[in-house]
Every structure is written in structure tokens, then in C-alpha cells.
């Protein structure tokens, strides 16, 4: 709880100092925004090595609470560090691309905590996804602004998928907002299967989500494998 409040306070302060206070409210108020749920069959994922070979002194690792609390890994912002601590305490799993002890990209996921107990997350209700046993949901990827445009988003997602596959999970879910072109592009580079879209309206804690149409999947995205990239 303490981390949550610390995160909120730092987020607001960072938004004020960066002149992005408007963005915080934008994240709480949507009208008919289109979300595109995506899915991947992890069992068909082809092994890939050297995903980050172009980035010297870097490695991809799962976050450990102790290492974050002792500042072994530095985050791009203070709020992100508190969010990481909060997420880990909530039982989420987080992974980061770390270069010279700095987290330059991180991504989060929720995995089943008990055998036979599917994951639960508010996003899944919004996306109309009913996860089954052994399925995982990934969310909230952030890349250090200094490292954007260096083609790290796709390898970070792929590294996460490979880690989850290695842990025996079968299906990977995520989503992107259709109006977020870089996110759309990243997901299509990953060749994830697109599920029926959702129209989402949100007013702070109140949210309404409606499925519309069928999955509008480009022919090239009909498969759910990670092959081809």
C-alpha cells in the first residue's frame, strides 16, 4: 500500500515537472477507445538467441524485490521503481532489460499462482478474455526514452514470451490500443493473433467495454506462432 501511494505521488510530481499532467487525466478518461486483444500460442514459439546482441553490457532478467529495494537496479523514474515494488508485492512478475545496472526497458505479467486457478486481472474483463489454466497475461511495457527508436520493444516482448514458455505456460495474452501506432506495429511485428476488438469507455473507476465485429485479422496474422520474425 505504501508503495502504491509513493508511486502515485511521484507520478504526479514527475508529470508536473515534465509538463505532462494532462496525460495522467487522459489515461483515466476514454470514450469509445478501441482495444485490440492479442494472443499467442507459446508452445509454437521458435527459440531465439542473442535478442539483444546489438546492446553491449545488457541482459534480460526477472526482477527480484531485494535487488530493487537495495537499488542494485536503477529505474528510469522513481515512480517506476515504486511501481515495480508494488507489482512484485502484488504477486506480478516483472522482467527488465538491464544495461549498466539501469533498467532501460521493463514489462510485467500475471501468471497463475496455484495449479488449476486461472489468472485474474481487471484488464482481462475489459478485453473479454477468460483465461484458462496455464495462460498468462502481459501488460505495461515501458522503454527508457533515451533508448526509444532502438528497436528494443519487439525483442523485450519476445524475451518475455520465451521466459514464460520455458516456465511451461501455454498461451500469452496482451493488448494494444488501436490509436497507438507504435504499439500496433510492435504487435504486428510479433505476429500475434488478434482477437475481436473492444470499444472501451472509461471515467476514472467506471469502465464499459463492448466487443464489436469479428476479429479483423490481416491474412498475415492468422497464425499464432512467433515464427517469421
Amino acid at each position, binding site marked *: 500500500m505504501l508503495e502504491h501511494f509513493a508511486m502515485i505521488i511521484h507520478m504526479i510530481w514527475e508529470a508536473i515537472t515534465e509538463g505532462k499532467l494532462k496525460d495522467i487525466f487522459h489515461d483515466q478518461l476514454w470514450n469509445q477507445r478501441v482495444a485490440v486483444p492479442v494472443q499467442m500460442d507459446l508452445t509454437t514459439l521458435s527459440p531465439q538467441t542473442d535478442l539483444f546482441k546489438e546492446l553491449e553490457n545488457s541482459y534480460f532478467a526477472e526482477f527480484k524485490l531485494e535487488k530493487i529495494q537495495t537499488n542494485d537496479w536503477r529505474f528510469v523514474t522513481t515512480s517506476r521503481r515504486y511501481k515495480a515494488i508494488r507489482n512484485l508485492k502484488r504477486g506480478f512478475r516483472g522482467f527488465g532489460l538491464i544495461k549498466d545496472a539501469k533498467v532501460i526497458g521493463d514489462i510485467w505479467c500475471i501468471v497463475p499462482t496455484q495449479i488449476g486457478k486461472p489468472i485474474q486481472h481487471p484488464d482481462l474483463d475489459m478485453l473479454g478474455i477468460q483465461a484458462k489454466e496455464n495462460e498468462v497475461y502481459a501488460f505495461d511495457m515501458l522503454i527508457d526514452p533515451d533508448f526509444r527508436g532502438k528497436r528494443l520493444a519487439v525483442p523485450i516482448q519476445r524475451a518475455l514470451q520465451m521466459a514464460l514458455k520455458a516456465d511451461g505456460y501455454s498461451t500469452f495474452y496482451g493488448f494494444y490500443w488501436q490509436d497507438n501506432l*507504435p504499439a*500496433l506495429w510492435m504487435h*504486428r511485428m510479433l505476429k500475434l493473433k488478434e482477437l475481436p476488438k473492444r470499444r472501451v469507455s472509461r471515467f476514472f473507476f467506471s469502465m464499459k467495454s463492448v466487443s464489436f465485429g469479428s476479429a479483423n485479422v490481416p491474412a498475415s496474422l492468422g497464425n499464432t506462432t512467433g515464427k517469421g520474425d
Partner: protein
Amino acid sequence: MNTKDVIKDFIQTEIVKHALDKPLDDTDQLVESGIVDSLGIMSLLSFLEERFSIQIPSEDLNPENFESVSTIVALVDRQQTH
């Protein structure tokens, strides 16, 4: 300039922004080489829609349609005939 040359010129001057080893070829792999990435696609899409007065639907925003100058020209042609 024809469609192909206009697109080549834009990619060269606005996305690559530096001299290439050789002139951009019609079949050079733009996605695989990283020339068209998640940021490059934003400027390229804006340019194509404005320059050719077309609307490219999200279903057509996939790597296959942007993998080379030739496939981009084909995409523009298809949208112009709609």
C-alpha cells in the same frame, strides 16, 4: 517523380537521414533492416496518407505491406483505386 521515386526520396531523406552504402533499391528489406520500425512507420504513414490523399486502414498496417519500396507502392496503388 512517380510514386516509387517519391516514396524512395521520403524514406531516404526523412527516415534514414544519412547516406546509404548504395541507393535504395525497390526490393531492399525496409522492415528487416530496421529502416521502418515503430517510429518510422508513424512518419511514413502520415506522409503516404497526406501525399497520396489516401487512408490506409489498420488492417493494412502490417510488416508485409511495408517490407520494401515495391510493396509500399503496391499498397498505395491499391488504396488509390478504392
